[in-house]
C-alpha cells in the first residue's frame, strides 16, 4: 500500500477531519484534531496489515505542543505520521497506550520532557525525570537553564 492510495482512502472516510499530505510514496503525514485520534488509529489498525507503533515525537510549537505518532508498516517502506497539536497552556491529548502498549513508555517520556498530558494513560508516572526533579519541562522553549541551576544547584542531591 503506498502513501497516495492510503491518503485518498483516509480523505474519503474522514473528510476534513484528517488532512493528509503524502510527501512521497513512503511517507504519509496526517494532521488530526485531538478527538480524531482514536477513530483514525482504529481505522488504520483494521485496514493496514502490518501496522505497528514506532515512536512519537513531541515538540514545543508556536500554536501548542505537537505530538507526532510515527507508525511504520511491516514489509512496506511506508511510515504513517499522525500529527496532533494540543493548545497551551494545558496541553491534553488522548492516550494511545490504551490501544497499543508499545506507546506507554514514549507517552510517559513526552509528559516528562514537554509536559503534555495523556488522558487515560494506564501508568502516568515519571519515566525519564527523577522523582525530585522540579515540575518543569526541559524540552519546552521557555525552560530557563540558568534559573533551573540556581534553584537546584549544579550537582543536586536527589
Amino acid at each position, binding site marked *: 500500500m503506498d502513501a497516495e492510495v492510503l491518503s485518498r482512502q483516509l480523505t474519503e472516510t474522514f473528510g476534513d477531519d484528517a488532512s493528509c499530505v503524502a510527501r512521497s510514496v513512503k511517507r504519509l503525514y496526517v494532521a488530526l484534531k485531538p478527538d480524531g485520534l482514536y477513530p483514525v488509529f482504529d481505522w488504520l489498525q483494521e485496514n493496514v496489515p502490518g501496522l505497528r507503533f514506532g515512536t512519537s515525537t513531541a515538540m514545543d510549537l508556536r500554536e501548542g505542543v505537537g505530538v507526532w505518532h*510515527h507508525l511504520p508498516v511491516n*514489509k512496506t517502506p511506508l511510515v504513517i505520521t499522525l500529527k496532533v497539536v494540543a493548545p497551551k497552556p494545558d496541553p491534553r491529548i488522548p492516550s494511545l497506550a490504551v490501544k497499543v502498549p508499545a506507546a506507554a513508555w514514549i507517552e510517559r517520556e513526552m509528559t516528562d520532557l514537554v509536559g503534555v498530558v495523556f488522558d487515560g494513560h494506564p501508568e502516568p508516572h515519571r519515566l*525519564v525525570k527523577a522523582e525530585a526533579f522540579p515540575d518543569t519541562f526541559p524540552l519546552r522553549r521557555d525552560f530557563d537553564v540558568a534559573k533551573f541551576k540556581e534553584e537546584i544547584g549544579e550537582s543536586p542531591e536527589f
Partner: protein
Amino acid sequence: MKAPSSRRVVQIGPFHPLLEEPVGFALAVEGETVVDVDARMDYIHKGIEILAQQRTYDMLPILLERICGICSVTHSVCFCNAAEDLLGIDIPPRANYIRTIIGELERVHSHLLWVGLAGHFIGYNTVFMWAWKYREPVCDVFEMLTGHRQNSALPMVGGVRRDIPEKYFPEAQKTLDMVEGKVKMLTDAVLDDPVLKARLKGVGVLTPQEVMDWGVVGPTARASGVDTDVRRDEPYAAYGELDWDVCLTENGDVFDKAVVRLLELQESIKILRQCFDNMPKGDLNLGMLHMPRGEGIGRYEAPRGEDIHYLRSNGTNMPERLKVRAPSYTNVASFKASCLGEKISDVTITLAACDPCYSCTERTAVVRGTDDQPERTFGDLVRLSQAETRRVADEMGRPHDLQLT
C-alpha cells in the same frame, strides 16, 4: 512496593555484575516465579536530543555516533537517511556501498558480542571467550578500513566523508573467511548442544501478537516469525542491489533469538563479500547541502532492530527537533510480556535475549494480580527444586540422578 505475604522483591542493579550498563530491575517473585517486573532506567541520560539542536548538520553525525558504544554507525547513518528523506536526494553509489560495508561490519561484531554475553549469562563461559576472540579481528578490519574500531566518523548528509582504502580488501576478505568458519562452528555447537536446548528452549517466549502489540523490532521480532527488516522493507544504502535473505524462526524463545542472530551473521558476511567484490567507483558525497524547511523520517536496521530518527528543519543550519528512537526502547519494554511467569533464573537470559542497549533507552512498571499462596519453608523449596529436576530429566529421557524424598 509492599509485597503480599508470599511475594518477595529481588533487585538486580542498577549496578550489578550481570549488567554491562546501569539499569535497575525489581523482580517481584512468588516462590521462584516472576509475577512482576519493574525496570528503572535513565541513569545515563545524556541529553542528546537537546544537544542535537545546538549542532550544525555537518557536526551532527559525529555527535550521534556517540549515542551508543556498539552501534555507532547506526545512529549517524539513520540521521543521514532522515536528512536525505527531507531533501529528497539519492547519494552516490560508492557512498552507498561504503555505508553498507561499515554497517554490516558493525552487525557482525555486535552479534558476536551478544553471543558471547549470552553464553556468559547462562554460565557457558567457553562461548563467551571464543565469541569475543573472533570479534576482535572484525574490529581490527573496521579499524583498518576506517581508522577507528568503533567511531568511523564516515557518514555525512549526502554521502560519506572519506574513502575506504581498497588495498585492504584482500586482508578483510581473509578475516571474513576465518570468521565465517568460526561462526559456522558456533552455530553448529549451539544447534547440537542438548544442554543449551534444555536451558533455552521455551524460555522467554514472545508470541507474534505480543511482538506487534509491543512494537518489538529486529532479531527479537524475527525470532517470533514476524517478517520485518528495514534493509528489505525500505532499502537504504546498497541493500536493494545485493543478494541476501531475511532470517526467520518460529518459536520466539531465547534459543530461537540466538539462532536468528547466528544465521544473520552468515548473511552479513555474504553481504560484505558482495560489497568488496562489486565496489563501484565514483564520487563520495554531494558536497555541503542547504537544508530547506521541512521534516524527514529516517529508518535503519541496527543490529538490534529498527532505528527511527525524526528530523524537523526550520531552514537554518541546525535542526529544530531531532527525535531518536533506538531499537532497545521498544524491545526492553516488551519484558513485561516475556518475563512474567518465568523462573527467576531464566529472567537473566530473557532480559539479555533482546540484546538490550541501555545507553539508547530509558524506566517500566507492571503489577499483575496477587494471590494467597502460603509462605514456603526451605524444605518446600528443596522439594520443589527436586520435582523440577525430575520433570526436566523425564522430558529429556534421562535417568533420575536424585533420590527424591
